[in-house]
């Protein structure tokens, strides 16, 4: 089911301009995200990967440009359209951003409370299901975020982002700060959830393994815009110095040139 619906992007960013005082982060940035794909956004520090994510979900008002999600203009959406959007996307922040005064289960229930007519008992069981879907043990639901490890907090944050079965999830550095085993498990989790729930995933990352393992398409941010998008193979052919350095550096070589790596590169 990858690559279908190429005609109509679910996220359409045009001419985005973000600026903090004299510092221009984005200028004339265009980006399309298609239904059902996993898009990895990479770029050097300070190229505004997170700012792009925050702009799309409406947390950061850009200086210029247009952002459409499901055909709704995010920047001029009224409250009702905005509520629809909030229901159709989920955001996982870097450290989970769980509400610290609530248990994990209550955190996952928060978005579900907006659903009218959902019985509390069912809501609780659905929250338990989401907690189990992201690979947390049952009893983790009773714990407070401060009692969890970083990796578990990320999983719980993902469970909350998935609470209402959104069409798009935004993940901000999902594997940052995890050990390689935990990061690989998280990659697998994202890929499986994306397939079984039909998710579109927009993920900001530094992690070459993640790009390699799960991303259908990669967008490289540099020179204040999306410099190039495409599959991993396309990236290897780009001769922009930063992109070349990123995908041909010693770390990249270690990831991409493992003997059976070719088998894992997925069709784009």
């Amino acid at each position, binding site marked *: 089911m990858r690559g279908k619906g190429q005609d109509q992007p679910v996220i359409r960013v045009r001419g985005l301009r973000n600026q903090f005082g004299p510092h221009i982060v984005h200028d004339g940035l265009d980006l399309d995200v298609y239904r059902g794909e996993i898009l990895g956004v990479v770029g050097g520090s300070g190229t505004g990967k997170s700012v792009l994510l925050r702009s799309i979900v409406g947390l950061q008002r850009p200086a210029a440009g247009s952002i459409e999600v499901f055909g709704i203009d995010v920047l001029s959406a009224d409250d009702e359209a905005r509520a629809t959007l909030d229901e159709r996307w989920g955001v996982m922040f870097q450290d989970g951003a769980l509400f610290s005064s609530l248990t994990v289960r209550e955190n996952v229930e928060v978005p579900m409370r907006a659903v*009218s*007519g959902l019985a509390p008992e069912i809501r609780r069981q659905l929250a338990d*299901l989401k907690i189990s879907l992201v690979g947390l043990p049952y009893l983790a639901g009773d714990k407070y975020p401060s009692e969890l490890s970083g990796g578990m907090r990320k999983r719980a944050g993902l469970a909350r982002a998935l609470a209402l*079965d959104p069409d798009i999830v935004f993940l901000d550095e999902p594997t940052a700060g995890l050990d390689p085993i935990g990061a690989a498990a998280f990659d697998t989790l994202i890929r499986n*959830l994306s397939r079984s729930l039909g998710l579109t995933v927009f993920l900001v990352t530094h992690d070459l393994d993640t790009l390699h393992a799960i991303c259908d398409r990669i967008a490289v941010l540099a020179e204040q815009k999306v410099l190039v998008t495409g599959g991993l193979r396309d990236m290897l052919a780009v001769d922009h110095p930063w992109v070349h350095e990123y995908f041909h550096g010693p770390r990249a070589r270690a990831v991409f040139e493992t003997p059976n790596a070719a088998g894992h590169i997925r069709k784009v």
Partner: protein
Amino acid sequence: MPSDGLEKGETFREFVPALGKFNAAKTGQQPGIALRPCKQPDRHRLTLPMILQSTGKHSHLAEEAIRIELQAAEEGKLLKLHGDLTVHQVTRMHARLSDLAADAPLVIDLGAVTRLDTAGAWALSDLKRRFTESGGTVRIENAGPDMTLLLDSVERAMPKPEVSPAGPRGLVLLFEGAGRAVMRGLEFALELTGYLGLFFARLGHVLRHPRAFRLTALVAHAEDVGFRAVPIVALMAFLIGVVLAFQGSAQLRQFGAEVFVVDLIAISVLRELGILLTAIIVAGRTASAFTAAIGSMKMREEIDAMRTLGLDPATVLFVPRILALLLMLPILGLIANLMGLFGGALMAWIELGISPSMFRTRLLDGTDISHVFVGLVKAPVFALIIGVVGCHAGMQVKGNAESLGRMTSNAVVTAIFTVIVADALFSIFFAQVGI
């Protein structure tokens, strides 16, 4: 199948009104019930991928209603589901499905389901689990590939409730709670004493090794806790003097003993109020600042970094802070005394016509210098309490911001409370020795 009241060949159906307010508004359709005869041949049966491609997930209104049909089939019961099995419908759907008795093999036909989300899949998996547990079988038919994938993932992830280990309850819990609180209180007092001892030990160390002493830090803290507190302390004491004169004169005038207002002001300000209220203000200002500063360093592992670099946190952080407070609080107390007397004198002049020179004479005649000492001797003790409580609370901060906030407010409350307790002990002591 008598248990669910269904005769062979009979059908029931249920319509759930659509909830899609937004979709209704968007498509211009009125919310309503899509009535379709249930024996109608499935001419326009749509599979999920078709719907997804043609209309997107949140599609037309008619597809948001669910319909559940139960028919008796040759191999048991046939459950036909229509519409969107989503989180919006799951409560009704689950209630409906819970009524099914697990007494015959069940076939679930998802052919007419337009949308399935994890909530719908959960309801189906829950039904399946219930049937399987009581020995029945459930088979799902006509599910598209996406639905099968979703059902499989949900079924694999179905949580198995575990009971967390049972804790004590009832009276036991009450006694245990009380016991723990008492022990925590004792531990806390012990820790505070430990910190006091630590401060003195490090102070002694610093006196023997003056090179380890941080004079710059001491001066900076002294400026912060002493000099910057002067305006607020002075204003507070001035107003206290004014209030005492005003209230005292009103009462003493009844006996014609207005002149004793001078004694009243002098004794209460010099002995008690000047230093006590200064200590309370400093506890609010400085104990919280100590906790916040040390706590945020603790949070960012700066304290651990210091230890690894061979710096002793007690020497570097506690000694300059507490020592600054120890030096500054008596000075602040003295300022408070002066301002209290000044405020009192001013009010006595305005309200009772006691001239400043008369006030002075009366003050020197009627008030012993011992009152000043009784007041100021408490200052170092209060300073130690405030400093030790603030530093101790800072060191108790864990890795998150909310514990920093909690410890900061704890520090203020503990410092003020302890200062008042110490003041009461001083009063009893002085009364006993007759000063």
